[in-house]
């Protein structure tokens, strides 16, 4: 099978599997992953090698679009809109999951660079799965509003935490023998480089964008700037995620009509995400599942404890209702798309342990996707948000 035939096949199978998944109230992303696993090397082995070869390009494009899109949340207006309660809770639950997971893994003698990556991935949650449950039970109320705000923002904090952790982690991995100072310097260089690149690209996007007069040009222009930013980030070995997120953040704060850059991508991005998640499913190494046991269980348990602790402190600081401090973290348990995207990046960066990280996250994702919605439902019941 040649590459184009393979892509066409993936698009069509992905499309109809997502339609089928909808009937059983499952998010489209989960369907893409399952299809990927089924046609991947571990089951049917239907995936042509040359498609696996272009998966690097697809994942960089998909992740840069996701980061760009999520980056528009970093505006003063959004922060005012969601209010301080959602801000505090979302920041602290993301940091809480990171901190508790890293600490727990370090206590169990997992190498520092791996613990950092797992901790960072722990911060992400799965908005689609959570919205699905809220919608399924027609839940409404103040608790749901707070939950939706936190869910909307926590992947944004998650991506920042991940990018910074990854920079530190890479520096630790590559310089195992050198001093802490050089690790910190190298990580700082990567982070500052990303901000500089994203910042310059953002200013350019915003100012030259005034010359763009129609929608087709706008789409070409926006994609062009995002690809240049991503390409330069790869060239200079700085973070693609941070660069694209910062690009978006700069544009959103510079330009009143910046929504046009984000809206125009809405028509073209889904086919890319579809291919991305099918390929993610296909790169799952089922043979590694046997090896993840211990780390997987620590990750599963301590992510939840971290989310709970973070939410609790966030709720206390912002004087939220006791319902929010007690139950909101239950609603944040599902994990899927963003976490897998992060794990795929980690897989690329750490050739030796990357496969294990990815397979662990993929396996725990399956667990969270199965038990997560149940806990979301419990949270909604406990807080009397289900009125049916």
């Amino acid at each position, binding site marked *: 099978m040649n590459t184009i035939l393979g892509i066409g096949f993936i698009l069509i199978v992905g499309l109809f599997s997502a339609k089928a998944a909808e009937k059983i109230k499952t*998010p489209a992303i989960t369907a893409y992953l399952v299809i990927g696993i089924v046609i991947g090397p571990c089951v049917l082995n239907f995936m042509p090698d040359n498609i696996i070869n272009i998966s690097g390009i697809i994942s960089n494009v998909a992740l840069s679009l996701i980061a760009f*899109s999520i980056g*528009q949340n970093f505006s003063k*207006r959004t922060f005012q809109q969601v209010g301080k309660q959602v801000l505090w809770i979302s920041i602290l639950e993301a940091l809480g999951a990171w901190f508790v997971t890293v600490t727990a893994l370090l206590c169990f003698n997992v190498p520092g660079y791996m613990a950092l990556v797992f901790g960072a991935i722990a911060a992400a949650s799965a908005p689609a799965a959570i919205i699905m449950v809220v919608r399924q039970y027609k839940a409404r109320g103040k608790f749901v509003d707070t939950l939706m705000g936190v869910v*909307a923002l926590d992947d944004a904090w998650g991506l920042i935490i991940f990018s910074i952790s990854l920079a530190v982690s890479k520096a630790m991995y590559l310089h195992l023998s050198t001093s802490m100072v050089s690790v910190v310097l190298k990580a700082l260089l990567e982070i500052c480089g990303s901000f500089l690149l994203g910042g310059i690209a953002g200013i350019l996007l915003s100012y030259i964008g005034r010359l763009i*007069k129609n929608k087709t040009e706008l789409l070409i222009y926006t994609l062009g700037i995002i690809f240049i930013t991503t390409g330069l980030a790869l060239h200079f070995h700085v973070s693609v995620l941070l660069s694209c997120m910062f690009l978006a953040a700069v544009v959103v704060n510079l330009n009143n009509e910046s929504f046009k850059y984000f809206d125009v991508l809405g028509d073209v*991005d889904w086919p890319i995400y579809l291919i991305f998640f099918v390929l993610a499913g296909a790169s799952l190494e089922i043979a590694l599942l046997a090896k993840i046991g211990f780390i997987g269980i620590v990750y599963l348990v301590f992510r939840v404890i971290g989310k709970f602790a973070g939410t609790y402190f966030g709720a206390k600081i912002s004087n939220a209702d006791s319902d929010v401090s007690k139950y909101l973290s239950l609603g944040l348990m599902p994990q*899927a798309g963003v976490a897998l995207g992060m794990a795929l990046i980690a897989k690329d960066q750490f050739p030796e342990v990357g496969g294990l990280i990815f397979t662990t996250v993929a396996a725990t994702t399956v667990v969270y996707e199965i038990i997560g919605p149940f806990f979301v439902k419990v949270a909604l019941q406990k807080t009397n948000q289900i009125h049916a």
Partner: protein
Amino acid sequence: MQVKDIMQTKVISVTRGTNLAQLLGLFKDFHSFPVVPVVDENQVLIGIVRMRNLFDVFKPHHQEILMRNPLSMLSHEPTDIFDIDIEEGMGFLVIVADIMDQKIVKVKESQSLKDAYDLMQLHSRDAIPVVNAEKQLVGIISIFDILMQIFREKGVA
């Protein structure tokens, strides 16, 4: 020629507190739901309600922010309006502030027709509100108004 020379000045606008029942009542006899500007007490334009914003009644809170995470999409389908029950009370509970679009595409009254046309093309809009230097709502201009002007100039209309 400037926008203010051909814009429609009789505009039905609403405020943040207008409820859904009142909003629907205003336009029930229209051919289709128009672009409805939302103004504050000083007539300053603060939002727009378009047909697509009516869908927000069916969606969760913080919809606008949630949609910025592409992975929060449940499926390829837009909201399934046939599968959602709405209580009667929603007519009074939902207010314009909950559903209005704050991503406003607007044009100043002193701008040229070409500017207004380009702006509408860029954002795929058929009509956009017109404001004065103080950001107050003064009218609405549509692609139809611009076409009419061109037809008039050519002697067609």
